[in-house]
Each structure stands twice: as C-alpha cells, then as structure tokens.
C-alpha cells in the first residue's frame, strides 16, 4: 500500500508518515503544499490520501474538489483542526471519505486508514480469504489451514496487496508503485524475491499453488481450480 500525506507542518507530516509506515506497513510520500499534493496525487496510483485542510498555495478542499473532478477515486482522509458541522459537511460533500480532527488519536487514525484502504479495494472484512489462506489486515496475521505463517514486513505487504486485489492480475509495476514511495523505479527485481519467498512459505503448507504467475504480465492470487477465470482476471486489470 502506498499513501500520500499532504501536510504543510513538516513535523506533523513526518510523524504521520512514521505512523503509517510502522503501523500499516505502507510506503509514504509527503507533499508540503496543496499544489504539490495535487500534482503527486494526479501522477501516482496512491491507495490513500491523508489531506490537511489548511494548506498553502491550494487549500485541502480545493485539492479534493479538483482531484474528484479529474475522476480520481483514491480514498481521502481529511485531517482538520476544525470540527464545525458545516466544514465537515462541505468536506464530505466535496468527496472526502472520512475525516479526523487534530489532535488525533494514533489508534483511531490507524484504524480509519486501514478501513479506508480496505474499502478502496472493495473489501469490507478485515480478514481476506483465498482458499486455505487467511490474511488478517488488522493484526497482520497470515494463516494457511489455520497455521500461523511468519512473514517479513515486505513479504506481508506484497501478500496484502495481492490479497486485496485477489483474482485480478497485478503487474510488477503496479506492485512496485503501491509498495514503494516515489523512488519505486530503483527497486527493479526485488518483487521476484518476495514472491518466491511467499510461495515457499505459503504453498508448502497449503499444498496447492495460490500465487499464479502470468508470464510477462504479473501475478494473481487465486486457487488453481479457479484458473478458468484467469482471462477475466486479465480483463479485470484493464477495467
């Protein structure tokens, strides 16, 4: 998962980024003002936007309105110092998915971010099931046939993303874009390493192939018995 934080207060932006990295295991980009926020959000496939309301150059509401005007459906969590009803109504009507007033509680912030990330991928349950594989996105517990699988942080992030897009074809670029911040192009071949690690840990316990490789295109998380749907999966990406 990759999140954009648009916040002009540098210390707060750093803290929010640290919270997101540590608690949600996602890549974080920071934009210090509205203009840059809009530019970054328009050019990168973020899974979540954490948006401050009072921003220099372009205020948060304007960023939100323009983003939605461009047809971007990225979930947006607005951080605001103001909890007046009119402001909240205006925010939600402008296309915000949720809001949180400063100073916020770390636990609540993390929970709301996770909920928005899930919903953004069409998931409602925090536990994503694929055959014998259960991925709990809240506790970051991964079980196969009710047996605990120990994953590295990066392996978990790859698996979580595949699980949230399960059944769909996910290209290597998409994975890179969603797992790393704006430097993602530097990370080249690491994805193959994580995928092989995941396969080794999961498929040995599951006794079946769960991460399918579509040569030259990418990966899909699904049971082999659902292979018939693979072409649908490919179409799903282009949709």
């Amino acid at each position: 998962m990759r999140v954009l934080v648009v916040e002009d207060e540098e210390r707060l932006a750093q803290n929010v980024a640290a919270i997101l990295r540590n608690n949600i295991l996602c890549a974080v980009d920071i934009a210090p003002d509205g203009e840059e926020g809009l530019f970054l959000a328009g050019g990168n496939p973020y899974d979540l936007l954490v948006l401050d309301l009072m921003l220099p150059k372009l205020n948060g509401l304007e960023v939100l309105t323009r983003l939605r005007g461009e047809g971007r459906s990225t979930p947006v969590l607005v951080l605001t110092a103001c909890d007046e009803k009119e402001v909240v109504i205006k925010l939600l009507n402008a296309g915000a998915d949720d809001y949180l007033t400063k100073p916020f509680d770390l636990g609540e912030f993390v929970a709301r971010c996770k909920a928005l990330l899930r919903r953004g991928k069409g998931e409602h349950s925090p536990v994503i099931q694929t055959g014998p594989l259960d991925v709990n996105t809240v506790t970051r517990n991964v079980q196969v046939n009710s047996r605990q699988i120990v994953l590295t942080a990066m392996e978990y992030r790859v698996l979580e993303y595949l699980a949230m897009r399960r059944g769909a074809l996910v290209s290597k670029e998409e994975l890179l874009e969603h797992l790393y911040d704006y430097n993602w192009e530097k990370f080249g071949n690491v994805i193959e390493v994580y995928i092989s690690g995941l396969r080794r840990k999961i498929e040995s316990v599951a006794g079946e192939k769960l991460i399918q490789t579509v040569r030259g295109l990418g990966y899909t998380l699904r049971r082999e018995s659902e292979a018939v749907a693979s072409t649908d999966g490919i179409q799903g990406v282009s949709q």
Partner: protein
Amino acid sequence: MKTFSLENRLTFAVVASQLLLAVGLVVIATAFSRHYGRRAFDVSLEGRAESIAALVYYPDDGSPGLLFNAAKVLPGDHRGHGDLFSVVSDHGDFERHTAGLDPKIFASIPPDSRFWNFHWSGQSYRAIVLRDVAILDTEEGIPQPPPKLTVVYAASTGGLDHAMRDLAAIIGVVSLAVLIPTMVLAIWSIRKALMPLRDLALAAGAISVEHWKFEPPAAARGTEELQPLIGALSTVLAGLEAAFTRQREFVGDAAHELKTSLAILKSTLQMLISKPQEPVDYARGLTAMSQDCERLESLLNRMLQTARAEQRIAVGHQRQLEPVDLASSCESAIAKLAQCASDKEIRIDFSTSEEAMIRAEIADLELIWLNLLENSIQYSPHGSVVELTCRADSGLITVTVADHGCGIEPAHLTRIFERFYRADSSRARVTGGFGLGLAITKSLVTFYGGQIRADSVPRQGTRVSVSFPLDRDLSSLEGQQ
C-alpha cells in the same frame, strides 16, 4: 424602560391640536359675534328710545302740560317679554311708562351711565338712558325754557343670548364634523409617513451575527430624514462584519495552529508508547517533544502578543507615556539579534541622523525592530548586509529596515501584515515562523499612531519603513537641552 409608540404620540399630538383649534375657533367666533350683536342691540335700543321721545308732544290748544301718543309705541321684538320704557319731563309735570312697570326700578341707574343691565320678572334686560332730550314738537306758547325729557328704554337680552348660544353650537358642530375626517386623514398620513421607518427598523432587526446583510427598504432609502441613519448603519455594519470576520478568522487560524502543534506532540508521544523502543529512540522522541513544546510555547507567546497589541488598539492609550530614545531601542534590538545574525554571517548596519524621542513603551519599540530584523535576517543570504536607518524628516521620524534577500512577490506584499499569513510556507516552517510577527508589528505601530509600509523587488531585497509622527513638545524640549 417603558416604551412608547411614535405613531400614537404623533396621532395624539395632531388630534389634540385639532381639538384645540376647534375650541379656539368656537370661542373666538362666539366672542366676535357677541360683540357685534351687542352693538347692534345698543343701536336699536337707542333708536327705539329716540322714537319714544318723538311720541311726546304739546297739546294743540296751547294748554300747559305734555301729551304722549301711546298708540304709536313700537311693539317689542320679543314675544312675551315686551320692551319697557319710561319717559319723564324735567319740569316734573309729565311722566309715562310701560303699563304695569314700576318706574322705581330705574331710580337706581347711576346718574352718568348710558347703558344699564338689570333683571326684571325673571328676565335679563338692557336699558339705555337718554338724558336732556328736546321735545321735537313745537307750539306757540310753550313754556320757556322748554322742558327736557329723560327717556329710559329697556329690552330683553334673552333673544340675543339665545342667538349667541345657537351660533356657538353651530360652529362647534361644524368644527367637529370637519374634525373627524381630518383626524382620519392625519392618522392615515402619519401611518404612511412612518412606514419607511417601520420597514427600516424591521430590516435592521433582521441583522444578526449569522446574517450581516443589511438591505434598507426602497421606501426608507427614498426618505431624506433616514439617509444619515441608513448611511451610519451601513458603515457600522460593514465595519463590524469585517471586524467579526477578522476575529473569526483569527480564532480559526489560532485553533488550527494550536491543534496542529498539539497533534505533533500527541502523535510523537503515542508513537513512543505504542510499543517498546530502544533507549536511543526514546531519547530522540523526547528531544523532539521538547522541541515541539518550545514551539508551542513560542506560538502561544506570539498569539498573546498579537491579542494584547490588538486589545490595546481597541482600548487606546491609558496613561501618559515617558519619552524614549528611538535609536537606543534600535540598538538594543540589534544586540539581541547579534548571535542570530552572526550565525548567518549577516552584518546589521545601523545609522541614525539625529536623536529622536517618541512617547512609547521601550519594550514595544524593541519588539517592532526585533520582528522586522528577524524577518530580514531569515530571508537574507549568508554574508549579506541588513541596513537599519533612522531618519527625521518633515515632522516624521522614519525607521527603515532593508535587506538584500529574496524579496516578496507583489501578490504577497499586500498581505504580509495579515495574521498567520506566510508568503513562503516551506521557508517559514523551516525557520519556525507563524506568520504573526509582522501582524504584531503592524498593530504596535498603529497603536503608537505610526504607519508601516513594505516595498520589495523580488530577488533584490525588501525594505520595510515605519514612520511615527514627531512629537513637537518633545523636539522643542530636546532643543532646550
């Protein structure tokens, strides 16, 4: 306080004055006609008295004495109350009077009065007395000197009084009849004339903190007397709305800054306690929190300074201030910033043309120069020069702070004195500014009756000038010293 209705008062005043007018009219008209009625009555009395005298004649046969032609006495005007007369010769040999009249009642007539009012058999009478009336008739052998007559003629005044009463009644009734429609007309026109005032009051009553829009009704705008009120209301409201909006913005901005600072502190703290950390991470977190606290503290100080400066403008001068030396306040501000300037290898050049005194708190003056110099140092490149000059000219004392920094874009230049305004956010954040320094400076300068202006050429530098009016008393005092 008891309220009253303008409309009722006006209506009452108009009705009362109309009533008074009607009563006055009745009284004057009655008195006037009574006067002329009396005169006509007296003239007719005189005529009748003379006609009585004309009825006295000498006998044709030359016998002594006088005769009276009673058959030719004119009948009285008033039925039932016949006129009374008495005619007496001064020779004492002739006396005639109305039948049944006791002539003694005329004996009490004062000897020199011509008219006399009296009551007889329940009636008011007015009598005329003609004395020494010559007998018109002439005959041979009339006694010499010829006898003279005294004629008293009286007529009832009941008819006259009755006519006067009727007249008063007619005038009264007519006045009342006219009064009713004029009253209705007056009330209607008062209502109509007061309608714009009523509408204006309603429009003004609709103004609230949520709804500042004041739209004077067309009728009120077209009323000459209401123009000053509408003008004053509009001006006051516009000022109030602006002040209110500014205040709300300030509170909003202040809340944003405070909550953001608090959010930093809280998130750092929660990150530290969310899971066990290495000692070095705790140390790093605590250091960060300590910095956050300092930041919060300086924000609070800045906000309090702003509020205090603005409060003082609102309250005005409260006591006589001692004159202080402007140049020395500049010097102490420079001294306080020496470390900060030398960190960036910036030199502050101070030049002053003459000693200048102004009445102010020295701490306020210092704060003004501190804020301006701090800004200049922040935006100046390493190793550059910031100039502070103090000059007195044409009744003004002007202090200028000029730097060779990055300058300010014209779009920002007009807004830099607004609270929480940061022309360049990323820079200001790094240098720890809140966008309050220049706002405080402006408030303080305004408080001391001065003016502040900023000129800037992007990429060349900024020049901020503060001018105070030179106090004449102080400059003459200086001259004596």
